[in-house]
């Protein structure tokens, strides 16, 4: 093919210069190119992430001292609901799969696009519709929802606020998530490059595969649950209304049947990202490839069986408590296997401490804290004390933000040069990381202490004995936000001003590093043939 030579020498513009049916904005929002859709997702997700951060910041500000600081209780209740809904449904769940998965899954398995490009565009549009409905819920009806992101019945079926619309938004978002999962699973089944057997597939696609199945099988359950909340509010069907014989605890079952696996929808892709970052920057093959791959499936599988551990004090039966507690402990094992394999991948590597690796290592540290504090909650008797306290809030922020969030930032720094063909300022990115890391721990670690002291969550006001730790936490939030601002400023500036990079700035070995930065339209001139595993580095001696 004659034009390959041209592609190598032309200035890197890649798929950005693609001439399609439309131009300008429409060339993006009607594009079926997986890379454009990935970037569309990324932009929308980051905008909503910032909104979520602002809500979080306001909550922390309110809690800086006891009594009223800046808002009324009703406002606070709405804000923590919105913070949860936005961060979970609009940021973390779509975050890694929809943004980075869309961009890199086809490239990493040697395909030109996903299996259903038009469906892929549809799922972005559904995402945006979900966002629009969620926003409408804020400004119409009788005020933003005040139920918490869990929408627990019967409060959610009784409160006068605009729950129906918000729940409908979540329903639409679930549908978007299902379509993404469906697309990825089919893509991985059908479009792997010739020679790429399952065990020659990089670990990020592996984690997306596991995630895809959870999205497919768990999301419909929340779909029907949320629909039922709407029916309950509109028609008074009665399935969750104790006065009509309904059982509020069944709502919790249905809700957590989805929402616990959803935690793995959030964390698995981040684990996949870490499995990509570490071998590249340690410049050696990953330790225990198959164990990491299988543990993704094990986490997805076992993770779907443990939802009852959210309900130990809800009044579910003693038998269920014991069964779910036991299963919960089992799901810790595949996570532990992953962590040990990652750490071992550093052994005898040739490590360059680039920013992505900083994020990856802090992921391991923070995720370990999150996971280990999860063990405390898994233990029945301890759970009774810390359930619904700030301890839980600390725990899931360590897992979701310290885990998935840092994984997301790691992915951002790891793949930024590939996506945009430019490098960010490395020094600035390290400083930003430092602020994020310190701020994060200062913000969330006090919550463990608060929780153990007995500070319930979702409290607008608190007793004076909790003040010191709340104050510390709020100060941490300021440091964290400075780090975020610094990080985004650096990245945005680098979009135009960053130094141009070649196809493989880190010395990576997976397929995305074999094509130009940014990738060309359709990714590959010729579909590559794969005859070896994903992490074989030049110059690394084998054992």
């Amino acid at each position, binding site marked *: 093919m004659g034009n390959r030579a041209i592609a190598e020498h032309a200035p890197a513009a890649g798929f950005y210069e693609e001439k399609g049916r439309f131009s300008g904005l429409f060339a993006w929002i009607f594009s079926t190119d997986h890379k454009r859709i990935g970037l569309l997702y990324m932009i929308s997700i980051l905008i909503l992430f910032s909104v979520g951060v602002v809500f979080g910041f306001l909550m922390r500000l309110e809690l800086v001292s006891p009594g009223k600081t800046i808002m009324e209780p009703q406002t606070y209740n709405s804000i923590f609901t919105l913070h949860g809904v936005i961060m979970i449904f609009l940021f973390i769940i779509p975050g890694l799969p929809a943004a980075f998965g869309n961009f890199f899954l086809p490239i990493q398995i040697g395909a030109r696009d996903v299996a259903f490009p038009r469906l892929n565009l549809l799922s972005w549009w559904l995402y945006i519709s979900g966002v629009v409905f969620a926003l409408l819920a804020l400004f119409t009806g009788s005020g933003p929802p005040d139920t918490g992101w869990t929408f627990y019945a019967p409060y959610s079926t009784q409160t006068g606020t605009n729950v129906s619309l918000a729940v409908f938004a979540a329903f639409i978002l679930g549908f978007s998530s299902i379509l993404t999962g469906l697309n990825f699973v*089919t893509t991985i089944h059908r479009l792997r490059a010739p020679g790429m057997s399952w065990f020659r597939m990089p670990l990020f696609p592996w984690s997306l595969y596991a995630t895809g199945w959870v999205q497919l099988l768990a999301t419909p359950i929340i779909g029907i649950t949320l629909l039922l909340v709407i*029916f309950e509010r509109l028609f008074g069907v009665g*399935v969750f209304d104790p006065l009509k014989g309904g059982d509020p605890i069944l709502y919790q079952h249905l809700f957590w049947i989805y929402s616990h696996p959803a935690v793995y929808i959030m964390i698995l892709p981040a684990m996949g990202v870490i499995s990509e970052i570490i071998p590249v920057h340690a410049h050696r093959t990953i330790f225990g490839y198959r164990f990491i791959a299988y543990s993704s499936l094990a986490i997805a599988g076992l993770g779907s069986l443990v939802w009852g551990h959210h309900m130990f004090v809800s009044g579910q039966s003693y038998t269920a408590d014991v069964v779910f507690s036991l299963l919960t402990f089992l799901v810790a094992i595949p996570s532990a296997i992953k962590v040990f394999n990652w750490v071992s991948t550093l052994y005898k590597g040739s490590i360059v401490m680039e920013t992505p690796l900083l994020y990856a290592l802090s992921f391991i540290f923070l995720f370990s804290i999150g996971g280990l504090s999860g063990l405390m909650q898994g233990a029945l008797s301890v759970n009774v004390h810390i359930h619904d306290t700030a301890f839980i809030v600390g725990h899931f922020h360590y897992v979701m933000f310290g885990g998935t969030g840092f994984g997301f930032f790691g992915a951002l720094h790891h793949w930024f040069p590939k996506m945009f063909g430019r490098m960010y300022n490395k020094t600035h990115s390290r400083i930003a990381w430092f602020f994020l890391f310190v701020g994060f721990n200062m913000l969330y670690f006090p919550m463990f202490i608060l929780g153990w002291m007995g500070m319930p969550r979702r409290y607008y006001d608190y007793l004076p004995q909790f003040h010191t730790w709340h104050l510390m936490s709020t100060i941490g939030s300021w440091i964290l936000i400075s780090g975020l601002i610094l990080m985004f400023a650096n990245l945005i500036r680098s979009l135009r001003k960053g130094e141009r990079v070649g196809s493989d700035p880190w010395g990576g070995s997976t397929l995305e590093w074999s094509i130009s930065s940014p990738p060309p339209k359709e990714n590959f001139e010729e579909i590559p043939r794969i005859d070896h595993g994903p992490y074989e580095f030049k110059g690394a001696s084998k054992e």
Partner: protein
Amino acid sequence: MSATGIAVEQHKDYIGAKIGMWLFLFTELLLFGGMFLLYSVYRSKHPAEFHNAAAELDTIVGTLNTIILLTSSLTMALSIAAIHRGNKRLCMILLAITIVLGTCFLVNKYFEWGAKFSHGIYPNSEYLLSFEKGEILFFGLYFTMTGLHGLHVLVGIIVLTVMLTKIINRPHRGVVFEGVGMEKLQGAHLAVLGERDERVWESEAIDETVRSVAISFKYLPVGKRIRVEEYANLETSGLYWHLVDIIWIFLFPLFYLIT
């Protein structure tokens, strides 16, 4: 490669489309799965009340609807079989029958619901609220589940109608193979088989630069063949229709036969 004058269509991965559809069906199954979970729990809590409440439903109407839906599944399957055999006319007739049967099902459902409403049995009605708790739940589930199922039937009817108009409107002239998997055809010969599988026509060996193959049916009687893309679509729509049938297969005994 479009030597025969047929525009090369966007590639369709036939198996990929089928996997995609099956995955979608799984999500539908689990959507109803959530309702079945509620049903099984409430039934286990209130067996007697469910028993009494089910007596309000008309078994004959239920059975009739079951037969209608099963038959529509048959005509659906037959219509796909017809298109595989290239019999477009039969395919269209069978598809039309499927749509009519689906509509009959909904009409029946409409009258059934209507009868309940006129007796004052509908969610949150005063009459219904005077019932036992288990009975309120039974009817809550009845309206939600059959309503949701009816909605799926409606969607199925719309999808099948779209398929039907597509098949009516599109003259089908050839088959296009393109994209992934083409490299497997390297060195192979394409052939057209006659009635008794004899080779009516055979191509030269396909060389390695081939990315797509289009075969026009210029010399075959029009109306006997259809493009792969369309029968893949029809087949996936068929899968959806059968799933709706499967859901009903469970709804029927759970609501009508537990008296």
